[in-house]
């Protein structure tokens, strides 16, 4: 062992892949550093020495090919492992031509990865193999001790049965017996955990060895099954293998071979299970980090809980604040299957979502583009059930599209009663068909004291409704905390019904907290529309504060609207400006949102101070600043506060 903790740099623009690789490598005693792109990688390589670089070849900007070429130009011989979903021979050749040393296809195969690390780091990076051996306490085949493993022997012949029981007990097995398959399956049904393995004669009355094998592998896959017989014909042998027999024992050699065969099967199974479980755990851990809200500070109106069942794949949820007139997006998705590949599909899905969401905020448009991208993968056995929302928090309005997921459930609280409305769901899942017209779409206004629940197909609307009714206090009581409503409901759901799939429950609360005090107005970016907006605002001001001296206040507001039209939306007549008026006890708050990126207020004000009075430009900002008591700019949203009275 030349290097006990090789330093490895992972270069990948996909956070999921970075996390997953990091977890696997860290679990195998590697020191890990990550870079989000080629440039960042080159910066790190320039200042630090790595034993190995794992390079995603397809990245925006400086891609893996170019980055690797740069590494070689720097005179570095650090082994570079190309990690990519491109699997054609020509892709492999291109990677090698760029200077890569190895080719590791996506999705990740942990054993292949560790073998490459071992090869290039010169270290034994498979400590789990050792730990497995020690954990299992399985001794050498010649050592006939199986530590009290519980075996169920199926044999009708009492003489043979007694012989075999003796052999097995000598090896350390704890042995029970039944004469036939029927009784064996009855026992398994009563408590399958009381047996670790079944050793059955192929030929018994009633359900024979094949029947036991078939049922056990289907219903109780944890239990190992060994079949013995005087002789086997080739067709039966093949069938047993297909059914998943863990060992086939010639009866004539039972005493000598049973120990070795069981030992081999136990070793293989434990190694495989541990490896799978470890990888799946790492995948799940990585994925859990992505099943979270996209905003750095999740808003108070969204709540989520999930409970995973399987090792990998499954449900995920993301949200994103678009900074477009207060709109945000929410996506809830469920990838079919629960294996490593489905987890990989999850990562791909999130990657696509991440790159197209801003430009496809409309739910139907987003479903279409993701479907188009998923179809390119040609993974015919996988699909993604998806719900997409565009949430206008200011108007408390939702556009909802579903592709295979259940429709949302609307809960409205009226006079201490809970009312429910189930919306249409379904539609074709993503990744199945090149059709854009098979999704469902609806619009929902979340009135005050209402909540919309979204959930994956692990839950049903009727059962959820029942659970909500049983937990009315969560919504009706003034005392009960409204926090973590989803967690409480999901726990109650699982207490009442068994969980047979991943479950995710997400709720969106109405943003209308005091409708009487908020006034909304929106207009397209045009000067004449600014005049109309100003007229609407001054009418509202006059209505609520008839004695207000509003001339300069209105001038300030007008300039903020002009700023949104000119600089925010760049005169795009299709771009909206949204205005919210909120009358407060001692003043007025006006929020103006455009669809631009926003600006640094302080910097602009400093710039404007350097102008002389004769210069043209930035006068609007001066006016806004002069007559508003407080200005806040966040992205494309400007908030003006006027103190009154």
């Amino acid at each position: 062992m030349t290097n006990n903790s090789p330093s490895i740099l992972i270069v990948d623009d996909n956070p999921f892949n970075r996390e997953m690789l990091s977890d696997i490598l860290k679990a195998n005693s590697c020191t890990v550093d990550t870079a989000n792109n080629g440039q960042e990688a080159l910066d790190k390589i320039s200042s630090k020495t790595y034993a190995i670089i794992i390079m995603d070849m397809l990245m925006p900007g400086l891609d893996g090919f170019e980055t690797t070429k740069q590494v070689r130009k720097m005179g570095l011989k650090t082994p570079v492992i190309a990690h990519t979903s491109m699997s054609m021979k020509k892709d492999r050749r291109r990677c090698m031509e760029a200077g890569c040393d190895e080719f590791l296809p996506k999705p990740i195969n942990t054993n292949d990865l560790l073998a490459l690390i071992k090869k290039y780091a010169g270290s034994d990076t498979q400590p789990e193999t050792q730990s497995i051996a020690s954990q299992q306490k399985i001794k050498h085949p010649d050592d006939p001790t199986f530590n009290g493993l519980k075996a169920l022997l199926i044999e009708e012949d009492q003489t043979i049965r007694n012989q075999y029981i003796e052999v097995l007990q000598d090896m350390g097995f704890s042995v029970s017996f039944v004469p036939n398959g029927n009784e064996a399956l009855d026992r398994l049904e009563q408590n399958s955990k009381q047996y670790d393995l079944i050793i059955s004669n192929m030929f018994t009355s009633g359900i024979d060895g094949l029947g036991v094998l078939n049922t056990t592998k289907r219903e109780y896959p944890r239990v190992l099954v060994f079949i013995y017989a005087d002789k086997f014909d080739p067709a039966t042998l093949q069938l047993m293998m297909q059914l998943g027999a863990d060992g086939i024992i010639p009866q004539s050699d039972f005493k000598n071979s049973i120990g070795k065969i069981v030992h081999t099967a136990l070793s293989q199974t434990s190694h495989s299970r541990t490896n799978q479980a470890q990888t799946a755990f790492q995948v799940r851990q990585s994925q859990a980090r992505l099943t979270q809200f996209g905003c750095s500070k999740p808003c108070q109106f969204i709540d989520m809980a999930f409970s995973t069942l399987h090792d990998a794949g499954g449900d995920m949820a993301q949200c994103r604040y678009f900074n477009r007139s207060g709109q945000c997006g929410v996506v809830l998705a469920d990838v079919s299957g629960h294996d490593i590949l489905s987890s990989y599909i999850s990562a791909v899905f999130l990657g696509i979502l991440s790159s197209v969401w801003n430009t496809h905020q409309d739910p139907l448009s987003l479903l279409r583009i993701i479907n188009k991208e998923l179809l390119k993968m040609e993974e015919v056995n996988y699909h993604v059930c998806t719900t997409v929302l565009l949430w206008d928090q200011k108007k408390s309005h939702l556009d909802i599209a579903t592709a295979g997921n259940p429709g949302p459930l609307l809960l409205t609280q009226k006079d201490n009663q809970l009312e429910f409305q189930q919306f249409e769901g379904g539609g074709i899942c993503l990744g199945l068909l090149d059709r854009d017209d098979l999704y469902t779409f609806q619009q929902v206004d979340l009135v005050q004291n209402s909540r919309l629940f979204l959930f994956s197909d692990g839950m049903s609307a009727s059962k959820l409704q029942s659970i909500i009714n049983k937990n009315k206090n969560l919504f009706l009581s003034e005392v009960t905390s409204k926090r973590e409503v989803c967690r409480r409901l999901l726990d109650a759901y699982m207490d009442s019904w068994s969980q047979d799939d991943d479950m995710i429950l997400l709720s969106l609360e109405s943003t209308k907290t005091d409708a009487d005090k908020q006034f909304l107005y929106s207009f397209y970016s045009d000067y004449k529309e600014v005049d109309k907006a100003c007229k609407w605002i001054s009418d509202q001001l006059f209505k609520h504060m008839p004695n207000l001296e509003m001339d300069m206040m209105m001038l300030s507001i007008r300039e903020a609207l002009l700023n949104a039209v000119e600089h925010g939306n760049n005169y795009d007549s299709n771009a909206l400006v949204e205005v919210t008026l909120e009358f407060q006890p001692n003043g007025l708050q006006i929020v103006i949102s455009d669809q631009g990126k926003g600006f640094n207020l302080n910097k602009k004000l400093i710039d404007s101070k350097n102008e002389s009075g004769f210069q043209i430009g930035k006068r609007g900002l001066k006016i806004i600043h002069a007559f508003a008591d407080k200005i806040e700019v966040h992205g494309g949203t400007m908030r003006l506060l006027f103190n009154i009275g």
Partner: protein
Amino acid sequence: MKTYKSNGTFFLLPETDLVASQMEEIRDYFMKELRDNVDAEQVTLDATGIEIVDSLGVNLIIGLYRHVSTESKKFNVVNAGEKFMKVANFFRFSTLFDIEKASSDD
């Protein structure tokens, strides 16, 4: 929106608010009129009817002042209402040219 000449002074009367939505039309009209009346010794903006002046309106007024000044002529504003004066004071127009308040505001 109109113009007229009296005693060597060329009068500009927007008769409307000096706001973004009106600006292109007002600017084009006034600039054409100024080009056609180069013989005037003084240019006066008559602020009658102007209630609102936004930043583009400010730019128009300063643009007119600069244009007239480059021709070595005098520029002033008359009949300025209270609201007009608030903006004029904020931008210190009076340091650039004379402003005469409307008689009702005296």
